[in-house]
């Protein structure tokens, strides 16, 4: 991963969602991607929490980046992330207790998401406050996008619903129970990774095909 000296803010966001999607392309922080995605609404809750934690952690890390000695940086980063996660936990416990119950232990585990620590180390510790916050936000959005996509597919197949609303009349639909069980999570992600690979290859091939023409 090599960052340009002054990356454009808009590319930071699109990179997070498509070409560097944390789940399908970088394959980081997969645990929650399978665990909370049996329904779309809990995926959304998890995704939004991650967006918040990533944005704020990047922002804070970038603010203190010149004060922290190099040797103790990892414990400092982890403390910053843990602080933000605890904040989200307390807020969610107070205002959205049902969601808090369904996310369970996985919300606390946001602390050790490899993707967050990786962005702090690679990006926020070397860039200014605003680009760092935007980078965290973009990567978080990519994660949110991936989670919700998996959640929608699994909930639809396993329950015939879309965010809890029945979209197919129940008498015409036999739910595939496996989709909301653990194996369904693994298999859905496996298929989506395959799909992202195909799309990525197509785009690369297109780009390669167009390049000589534009040069001539």
């Amino acid at each position, binding site marked *: 991963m090599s960052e340009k000296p002054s990356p454009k803010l808009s590319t930071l966001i699109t990179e997070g969602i498509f070409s560097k999607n944390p789940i399908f392309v970088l*394959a*980081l*922080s*997969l*645990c*929650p*991607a*399978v*665990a909370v995605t049996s329904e779309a609404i809990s995926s959304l809750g998890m995704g939004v929490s991650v967006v918040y934690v990533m944005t704020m952690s990047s922002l804070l890390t970038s603010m203190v980046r010149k004060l922290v000695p190099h040797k103790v940086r*990892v*414990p400092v980063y*982890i*403390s910053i992330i*843990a*602080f933000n*996660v*605890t904040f989200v*936990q*307390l807020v969610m416990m107070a205002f959205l207790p049902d969601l808090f119950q369904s996310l*369970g*232990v996985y919300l*606390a*585990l946001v*602390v*050790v*998401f*490899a993707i967050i*620590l990786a962005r702090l180390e690679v990006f926020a510790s070397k860039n200014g406050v605003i680009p760092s916050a935007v980078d965290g936000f973009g990567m978080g959005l990519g994660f949110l996008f991936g989670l919700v996509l998996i959640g929608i597919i699994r909930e639809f197949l396993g329950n015939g619903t879309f965010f809890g609303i029945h979209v197919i009349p129940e008498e015409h639909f036999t739910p595939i129970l*496996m989709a909301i*069980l*653990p*194996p*369904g*999570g*693994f*298999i859905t*992600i*496996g*298929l989506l*990774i*395959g*799909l992202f*690979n*195909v799309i990525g*290859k197509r785009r690369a091939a297109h780009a390669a095909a167009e390049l000589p023409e534009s040069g001539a």
Partner: protein
Amino acid sequence: MQEYLLLFAATVLVNNLVLTRFLGLCIFFGVSNNFDASLGMGFALTGVMTITGIITYLIYYFILVPLGLHFFTTLTFVLVVAVTVQLLEIVTRRYLPNLYQMWGVYLVLIATNCVVLAVPLLNVDHHFNLMKSIVHSMGAGVGFGLALVLMASIREKLETSDVPEAFQGLGIAFITAGLLALAFLGFSGMIPMG
């Protein structure tokens, strides 16, 4: 005694952390392409989890609860796990060089991993006593090791088979894990989780 044996079996098979709770997938997919590494990782994780399970239990019930600092649980456990792993690395390197050769590489990977953090959090969630915490932590490590070894054996066979281009690597690994999880689903209901 029977209670503990049941808890152990339930943690290894029914509530297998990787295959039914999806914890530690990064390690699971990262290490399982090598059989020997999987075995080593399984042992290292079992050791680390048991030790952190005991330490976090003591800290939670003798420091956090009396002081009413429950909301610091996540922060404390992360730091405890990270520090414990670092200490283990230093101690084994100094006094048990043979063990260090087996473990050393994996300890670095384990330091900030969700499965190692999840086990103490689950111990607290289930209100386990000290003995149960130890059994649960150990079972979690053994279960992880079992899943790793199974997966590694399957992936060794996969290497010689003809996988569609788009699914090579991680794609097929996920689908294989899905089938493995399906097999482990057969254990559910065998032992009621107390």
